[in-house]
């Protein structure tokens, strides 16, 4: 379970929708921050955020025309250093100074979770939005695994994680901070010790729970000590027990059921673990056309009863042109599991349409769940420009709930696959055999043969045949 919960958390962390800033932002050059979240399992999550803003006279279109809204997803992407290098080059300090010195590929790819993102968006410079700034935000999240990277030890330091320490802030940065989540997991006293002791702490409501962070400002000369490096160390006072970690209020699971290469069923399980509050979820599914969905088999059950979605939008697929699009608004009852399932049939592709590795299977993109999940602690609306960057990833619409967007796992579905090693043999042989044998045997079986004495016909017939031969028509 080591990776699953951070995975969920970070998926929301990264994919929660950004909000539009209303007020005019200051034209700072770069803000960078690193958030370190130790988890009770002994793993530790680290999230880098770099934000650059600049003014540009590119005009933004007035309003958003939803007709041009596009959604695309590539369900299979294997991350490697080739993804990291160009991403790093976008940073003003590259990897020479500031927090980005920690971005060493050999450590970052020894983690159990890796997520990398680039967001570009226009930000209004004034209330009426007559001119815009552009914001480039780069985020990178990794989860260090206590079993793999930590060799079973649950105490961490920056050096253990990244094999580097922090020496200086990026000269171009207007803000450069490290936040460490020191929220105590038990009631009585602190469970986590941070060294060096923080000069400041910061409290906020993140994802509906109150969190406390130790703050290290690299621009503050007191932070980087005499040895000219900052090596943050985390020690658990009491080693966290290896119990099943707590589950979030909303999580989901998706799988293909059935066996064989003809039919199957796509099932999505939506878990609401909140003890007493129900909340609605918007479920978006795009399914490739070669899985032919039977929409009449769509069933949604919660607690053994049928759950009628309050809104369904279905756009059928067109072969080779457009995938199925299914969007539903489903109310999840409190502490329940909702199963959404739909039958499909596997289509036969043309033989040039198979991928080079057809026996690997075909990917089906993840479902997307968007929900307003009830909060434990009411959040106050904050000024986004003052608060840390990570805060703006979790927009709060009202005080009682927070927005969450979850992506389920992608699926791998096997389609009926011909044996490509000998298509020529197979096609030629079967066609020949069918053509020759079937035709002749059909002929033999449907006819009766008997010997007839060759008879010369009457005079009239012979004359007729002569005439026919002259005309070039077969004789009677």
């Amino acid at each position, binding site marked *: 379970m080591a990776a699953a919960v951070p995975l969920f958390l970070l998926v929301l962390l990264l994919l929660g929708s950004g909000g539009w800033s209303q007020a005019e932002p200051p034209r700072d050059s770069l803000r960078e921050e690193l958030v370190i979240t130790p988890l009770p399992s002994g793993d530790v999550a680290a999230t880098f955020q770099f934000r650059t803003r600049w003014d540009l006279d590119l005009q933004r279109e007035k309003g958003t025309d939803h007709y041009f809204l596009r959604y695309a997803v590539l369900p299979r992407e294997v991350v490697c250093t080739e993804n990291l290098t160009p991403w790093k080059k976008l940073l003003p300090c590259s990897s020479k100074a500031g927090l980005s010195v920690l971005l060493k590929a050999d450590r970052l790819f020894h983690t159990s979770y890796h997520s990398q993102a680039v967001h570009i968006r226009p930000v209004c410079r004034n209330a009426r939005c007559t001119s815009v700034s552009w914001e480039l935000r780069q985020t990178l999240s990794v989860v260090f695994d206590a079993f793999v990277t930590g060799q079973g030890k649950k105490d961490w330091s920056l050096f253990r994680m990244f094999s580097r320490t922090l020496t200086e802030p990026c000269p171009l940065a207007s803000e450069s901070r490290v936040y460490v989540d020191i929220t105590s997991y038990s009631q009585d006293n602190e469970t986590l010790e941070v060294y060096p002791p923080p000069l400041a702490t910061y409290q906020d409501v993140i994802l509906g729970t109150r969190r406390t962070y130790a703050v290290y400002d690299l621009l503050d000369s007191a932070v980087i000590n005499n040895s000219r490096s900052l090596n943050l160390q985390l020690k658990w006072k009491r080693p966290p027990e290896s119990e099943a970690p707590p589950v979030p209020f909303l999580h989901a699971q998706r799988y293909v059921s*059935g066996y064989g290469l003809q039919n199957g069923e796509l099932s999505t399980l939506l878990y609401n673990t909140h003890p007493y509050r129900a909340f609605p979820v918007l479920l978006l599914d795009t399914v490739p056309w070669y899985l032919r969905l039977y929409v009449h088999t769509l069933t949604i059950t919660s607690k053994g009863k049928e759950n009628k979605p309050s809104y369904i939008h279905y756009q059928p697929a067109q072969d080779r042109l457009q995938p199925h699009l299914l969007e539903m608004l489903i109310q999840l009852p409190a502490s329940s599991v909702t199963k959404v399932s739909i039958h499909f049939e596997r289509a036969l592709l043309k033989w040039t349409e198979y991928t080079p590795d057809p*026996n690997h299977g075909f990917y089906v993109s993840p479902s997307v769940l968007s929900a307003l999940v009830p909060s434990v602690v009411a959040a106050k609306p904050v000024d986004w420009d003052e608060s840390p960057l990570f805060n703006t990833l979790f927009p709060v619409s009202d005080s009682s709930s927070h927005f969450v967007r979850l992506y389920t796992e992608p699926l791998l579905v096997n389609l009926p696959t011909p044996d490509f090693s000998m298509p020529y043999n197979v096609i030629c042989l079967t066609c020949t055999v069918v053509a020759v044998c079937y035709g002749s045997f059909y002929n*033999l079986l449907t006819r009766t043969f*008997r*010997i007839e004495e060759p008879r010369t016909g009457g005079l009239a017939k012979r004359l007729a045949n002569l005439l026919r031969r002259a005309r070039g028509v077969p004789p009677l």
Partner: protein
Amino acid sequence: MTRAARRAGAVAGCGSAVPEPPGAAMGLLSDPVRRRALARLVLRLNAPLCVLSYVAGIAWFLALAFPPLTQRTYMSENAIGSTMVEEQFSGGDRARSFARDFAAHRRKTGSLPVAWLERTMRSVGLEVYTQSFSRKLPFPDETHERYMVSGINVYGILRAPRAASTESLVLTVPCGPDSTNSQAVGLLLALAAHFRGQIYWAKDIIFLVTEHDLLGTEAWLEAYHDVNVTGMQSSALQGRAGAIQVAVALELSSDVVTSLDVAVEGLNGQLPNLDLLNLFQTFCQKGGLLCTLQGRLQPQDWTSVDRPLQSVQTLLLMVLQQASGRPHGPHGLFLRYRVEALTLRGINSFRQYKYDLVAVGKALEGVFRKLNHLLERLHQSFFFYLLPALSRFVSIGLYMPAAGFLLLVLGLKALELWMQLHEAGVGPEEAGRTSGSSPPFPPTQSVGLASLVAPLLISQAVGLALYVLPVLGQHVAAQHFPVAEAEAVVLTLLAVYAAGLALPHNTHRVVSAQVPDRGWMALKLVALIYLALQLACITLTNFSLGFLLAATMVPAAALTKPSGPRPLCAALLVLTSPAAVLLGSLFLWRELQEAPLSLAEGWQLFLAALAQGVLEHHVYGALLFPLLALGLYPCWLLFWNVLFWE
């Protein structure tokens, strides 16, 4: 157009819309004169041809064990092509201590120590889930002493780093109520702890410990794929890891092993891809492990004197094992879901040289690391093969002729009967000069068909009774006779089977047949075609079963006729009936395992096998019982009917 074809076209004289077939063979058949000559040849040489074909089939089969027909196995899949991985597993002590703890906890609780397993799996860093299941068997299983079964499976998932959980591998250990598989659990946990510390995994690995061995595996597989094939009640799975690519089942009963036995035969004779076996075998060779197939040592020297005998024995054992259609280990149930799987059994015999758990663990580590490299499902190598030795195989193209020759006998006999039926009214020499004015076909066919309906229906009904009655009527039987339910099922089975022998040979008296000779010929013709079709279909999917049935049933089917030495024929027919074949196979099997049976033991084993066959159909979905009851037994009854035709 060849001359023959043109002549045939002219002679047929029915405004030929169908284009004339090219080729000499077609001309041969459509030319009435040559056709008649060919027919006469088939009629006259029928008996020698049949004998020749049968002998050729059997000889071909026996020749399968020898080099021109067996080939060396070779790795087809590129991704697992070499054994270039460095095995680092060294957790032998850890495995032993896990095994000791497991055995102690198991003795304390009396069943699978679920809480301990959960705790331990979590402590080595797996994501742990449990699944509870229960199943009421259709009747008490006396071999395993179980009726109402409920248990809990425990499984832990090792999530591959930075991957999306789309593919997975499975390492499973079945824990039966009686089998002591604690060393396998220990090794599984030690391997899990070792694997968890590695960074290179690209596929998730599921470590599964099932209770009630195969029942637990079936429950877990059904829940994983969210289907219900066998009426198992089980809780839904909380955690999944995508499409399972390969599964390996492990059975170890001691700390040290002298050899590892590989089992490949699965449910209904399905086999895993040959590459999986090749992979395991290469790692056995690399680690110097002694590997056996069907519990037999592999011939070290391929040119030694006793090798031929040995490979024939191994081949026969595999054929018997595959023909039984029962899973030869928990891996057999995975195959239905297109998961390539095999079972490894640690054998501890009296040999001097023994291997400890580290050696076994290293072989498994190597296998899993190579499987981790797989880019596609295993598909390159053979799915249909026979194994006379671990490093030799016979491909489908080479063994099919053996069954083909046997089935040819049925075809030849059917052809002969068909011709005799058509020419029965006229003498052989004047058959050619039959004029078109009096065609012999319509009366023949009408007589034949009318007299065929009753025997066909009745024998099928007896087959249906054989399939349904034993399980349905067990309680009635247990109430009225002093027997237990399980005994009642077996005895009902035998009673219905024997009653079938008495019933149908009186059926033709119901209909009045004017031409008695034609009656049985038509019936035998239908029975021959029915048998040939069934055997051909079986042979395509499960060669061993098809061949075994063909080798026994074909001669009796070909020889059966009402005239001639009836007691002799009846004895032959009874000896080759499906049940007798089962009994004979049991004796042959034990003989090959060098543990010969006495008659009484054989009978006991036979009764147990009957019960197991019925049970496996209901519990795992094995198809042998319905196939015999609904397909082959009624067909065999038709021949019985032919024999006693009056």
